């Protein structure tokens, strides 16, 4: 007979920059109501099926980074709940798949979900807000399950040309897609 394992891991969380901002607002928007798990540092290719035991030893030995306060990169890859035997996970379809626009031109991205659904919609962030600014950071799905994001550039953003990434996430599915945005310098003030 063995002892029952009653251990519960206690781990400390840090506030993200968004969390600090919402806490400072003191308007109730900070209240934590949901959670998600992530596995950002994991490389599943390290799983060694040729071993008879401990096939995942290399994965379990991976070092884990300390938490990052930038909410845009603190949790990239969410774990998901699917029925046992699933062979596919949700996959975001974005259109266009990348974009090059003139300085000051708006760009629209359409997003939908294959192999699943995102009934709560989609969330998006731009990594360099000097190059592009989203008019909406969340988008509810329309009757066809499609969300829409609009990005402003040029003087309507931070006034910078160049390339940046837009991260789009399905709120339910956790599926992610990166959209590469290029804003040409043409038309920018010298």
């Amino acid at each position: 007979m063995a002892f029952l394992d009653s251990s519960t891991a206690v781990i400390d969380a840090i506030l993200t920059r968004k969390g600090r901002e919402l806490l400072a607002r003191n308007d109730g928007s900070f209240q934590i109501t949901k959670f998600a798990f992530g596995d950002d540092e994991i490389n599943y290719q390290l799983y060694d099926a040729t071993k008879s035991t401990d096939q995942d030893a290399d994965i379990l030995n991976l070092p884990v980074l300390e938490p990052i306060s930038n909410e845009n990169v603190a949790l990239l890859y969410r774990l998901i709940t699917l029925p046992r035997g699933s062979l596919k996970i949700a996959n975001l379809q974005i259109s266009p798949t990348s974009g090059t626009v003139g300085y000051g031109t708006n760009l629209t991205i359409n997003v939908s979900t294959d192999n699943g659904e995102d009934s709560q919609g989609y969330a998006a962030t731009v990594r360099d807000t000097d190059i592009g600014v989203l008019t909406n950071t969340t988008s509810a799905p329309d009757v066809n399950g499609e969300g829409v994001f609009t990005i402003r550039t040029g003087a309507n953003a931070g006034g910078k040309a160049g390339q940046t990434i837009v991260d789009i996430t399905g709120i339910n599915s956790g599926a992610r897609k990166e959209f590469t945005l290029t804003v040409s310098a043409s038309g920018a003030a010298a």
Partner: protein
Amino acid sequence: MSINNYDLGRDVINTEVLTKTNYEITSATAAQERSLNSFVMEATSTGFLVNAKGTTTSTPLSAAFRNISNYFFSSSAANRIPVAQNNVATTGISRVITIGRTTVDDSILSGSVTGTFSFGTQANKVIIDQPEQSISGAVGRKGDLVEKADTTNIVGTIFYDSGTMVFHGGDYSRDTNFLIDSASGFTFGPGATAGNVAINNISFISLNMLKRSVFFTRAFNQEFNYSNNPTAIANASLGSISSNLTGMPTSFITTIGLYNNSNELVAVAKTAPPVKKNFDTEKVFAVRLQY
């Protein structure tokens, strides 16, 4: 599903954590290190305030007096404050100890202050604080500073939240007169000379209040066994799961994200080492957040 709701009644514990820190200041150097400043001021002072670092500032002492008079005592006559022991007579002179925010933290603990003062050639007097029973002022909880040997002898007022002690009274017959001429000074460290008031030592406790929430974050056996990690996906365009993971779906938890109702990531915690999760296991993490 990649984001779950907490059952706020079952999964979340909210508490307040109170940290107390004891301080005892026995010298001018210690006072400087802890950002304690002492000065004497008159409504008619022509000098300037010297800060805790010993540097003369551009703030006139008369302006400091008006500030104390208006802010702490709501005095309409800016050049007078009530005398501590009777609150009828007024005075144009007082002595002050201010404690910097880095030492005060959130507040001075009421009932924790003890100071020993020298009055010229007289025997030392011990002063303590007596907090008011209910908060009546607009500047937070305050209390009387009284002589320990005779607590009816009120010599001043302490404002706990700002860490300010104003000495604006004292019974002459008990040699606790803080209203003597400003030229006699008000300094830290023993060794008062005739006509001087010295703070031999002063001790107090500061309070730091933190909110602590613990979120019991559960991954039941049927949950969170698949991953959006690109290394777990065989074909990104199709979303097909790597064949290694289809037989016995397994995930490895390294990160726990806490979200608000708008799905904004407000806090994040990490596990080390990665925690293995599959259909045969359940995991519970107590995620602690202090702010």
